[in-house]
């Protein structure tokens, strides 16, 4: 293969750079605003670099006006619980759909695909009513329970498990592993790339989710990060943009860090899985 010409490489770099700038600019602006005093944010001259540093004040407010650490811990706890249960429930389902032969399997899988098409908003009223009847409103449980079973996870794992060799499953059966042992001892360790990819999707979605916490939780001590931001804005009467942006940065950072870590593991997982002989 010919190495790409310098002109082509330059053009490629320019296009990627432009795309990155468009995506990153709001974040840069967010970070910039979190470092500036209120007056500078609203000044007529637009400059990313603050002339007067106001970081300590903004971040100090963000950490103290609402129980920020608690909000972050809530987010982490809720996301972790959701992710663990999603994998615990989805992996056996996906294994059954991918590798076991039984009557009605295709119908079940079609139902899973159908489930992918239903947005949470469409079923939120019955879910809300059920939560109210079970006296779950304003608890951690209500933030986790509706998301325990992810059709997306079933779909993703099923596609991945189908690619595992049948002989591997057969060998495990010969070795005396039960079907559930196969799921946890053979399928899961070899499904890390899929699990990591799914973890990124799931954690991002539930960390950032505002809709469901907003309608089911009204106490600050139960707030997840986006809801915490909302409470923060209400507490600050919504006009201290420097502090608000500082809070936003704090809420975004763990996600960025997690993503970078997962990305590394994702690639590791891909290269280490020598599934095929």
């Amino acid at each position, binding site marked *: 293969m010919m190495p790409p010409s310098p002109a082509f490489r330059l053009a490629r770099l320019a296009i990627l750079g432009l795309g990155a700038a468009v995506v990153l600019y709001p974040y840069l602006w967010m970070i910039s605003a979190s470092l500036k005093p209120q007056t500078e944010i609203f000044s007529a001259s637009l400059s990313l670099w603050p002339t007067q540093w106001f970081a300590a004040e903004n971040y100090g407010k963000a950490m103290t006006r609402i129980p920020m650490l608690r909000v972050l811990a809530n987010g982490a706890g809720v996301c972790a619980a959701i992710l663990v249960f999603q994998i615990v429930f989805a992996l056996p389902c996906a294994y059954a759909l991918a590798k076991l032969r039984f009557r009605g399997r295709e119908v079940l899988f079609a139902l899973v695909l159908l489930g992918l098409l239903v947005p949470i908003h469409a079923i939120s009223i019955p879910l809300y009513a059920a939560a109210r009847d079970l006296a779950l409103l304003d608890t951690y449980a209500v933030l986790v329970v509706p998301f325990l079973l992810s059709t997306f996870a079933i779909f993703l794992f099923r596609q991945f498990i189908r690619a595992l*060799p049948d*002989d*591997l499953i*057969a*060998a*495990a*059966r*010969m*070795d*005396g*592993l*039960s079907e559930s*042992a196969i799921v946890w001892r*053979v399928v899961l*360790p*070899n499904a890390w790339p899929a699990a990591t990819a799914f973890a990124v999707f799931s954690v991002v979605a539930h960390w950032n989710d505002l809709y469901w916490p907003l309608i089911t939780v009204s106490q600050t001590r139960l707030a997840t990060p986006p809801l915490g931001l909302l409470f923060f804005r209400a507490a600050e009467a919504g006009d201290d943009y420097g502090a608000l942006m500082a809070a936003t940065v704090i809420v975004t950072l763990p996600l960025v860090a997690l993503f970078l870590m997962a990305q590394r593991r994702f690639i590791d997982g891909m290269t*280490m*899985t*020598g*599934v*095929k*002989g």
Partner: protein
Amino acid sequence: MTAAAIHLDAVSKGYGPTRVLDGISLAIAPGEFTALIGPSGCGKSTLLRLIAGLDRPDRGRIRIGERDVTTVRAADRDVAMVFQSYALYPHLTARQNMAVPLVMRRLGRLQRLPVVGRWFGAGPRLAEVAREIEAAAASLRLGPVLDRRPSQMSGGQRQRVALGRAMVRHPRAFLMDEPLSNLDMALRHHMRGEIVDLHRRLGTTTVYVTHDQEEALSMADRVAVLMHGRLLQVGRPDAVYRDPAHLDVATFVGAPRINLVAGSVDADGVARRGGTALLAGLAADAPGPVQLALRPEHVVLAAESGPASLPARVERLEFQGAEILAHLRVLDGDERLTARLPAGRPGIEAGRDLHVSGHDGAWLAFGPGGERLRPSAEILSVGDRQALRHG
């Protein structure tokens, strides 16, 4: 565990409308090395999976030892399988791969738990497992790769780890599904020897599936030829080769392929090609077309026509070292024949017309359905008879 006999009794299996196995009955003696051969798609792997317990037969019974295992799940049959793809656990090292069957069998559910398993007395048993793995690894010369994962091993090493995983638990039978077909030629020949040695040392009943008839003939005590879901012949390798029961067996077993010429049986029980009598003493009650078959090494080439010879032209010679293969075409038809001759025999060159005959008793006759037509015992071959008449 001692080696167990395996009995298949009228086993049938189909997938949807296709009948993959049709009434297979086979008895394998304890400690015997049996090769199941047949072209791809003949059902041999399906049969092995039925013995393993990975599939259930639609009809028929399977016994391992004294026990009817037809409905017993794979894990409880106490047989081990080696797969074509090796099917090693990619996330485990060679040592851990070999430990899996032992750990699953010897440790209780609680003892198998990571870390806390020790509280339930897993320690001594794990030490015992480790010792047995070391012993198996030593006999397979796996020491250097014990702590590598499959992705860091060569094909031959993976193959040996797969064998090790099968043998550590001393099963009542080994089932091998084309275990050598992913290896290159040199390694395949080497591993043939290792598997035969292993079998001799352990004495475990072995069922070995392969599409490579040469592999089967060279390794097995007994060969079972499976085609179109039926067992066509079961016997010692030399018997299957020399005395095939069916045309399909004759053509499948042996390389280069057996030579075939079309002929017919007449009312006197003599099979003729054109006017030439090739084989006498067949049952005379059903005259009709037959296929006459002759192994390449039984072909006799002569410059002069003989009493039972067919004229043929040498088309091409293939040098093979110690011997040459002469490719001929029958002059009064278009059948192609192969003759296997010692290299350096004079008078054989491309373009020459020669006369082909068979060693005494070497011609085999097959009826229109492929069934073997045997001469009655007391009647000698055409050549012998003529020799007697002249003498």
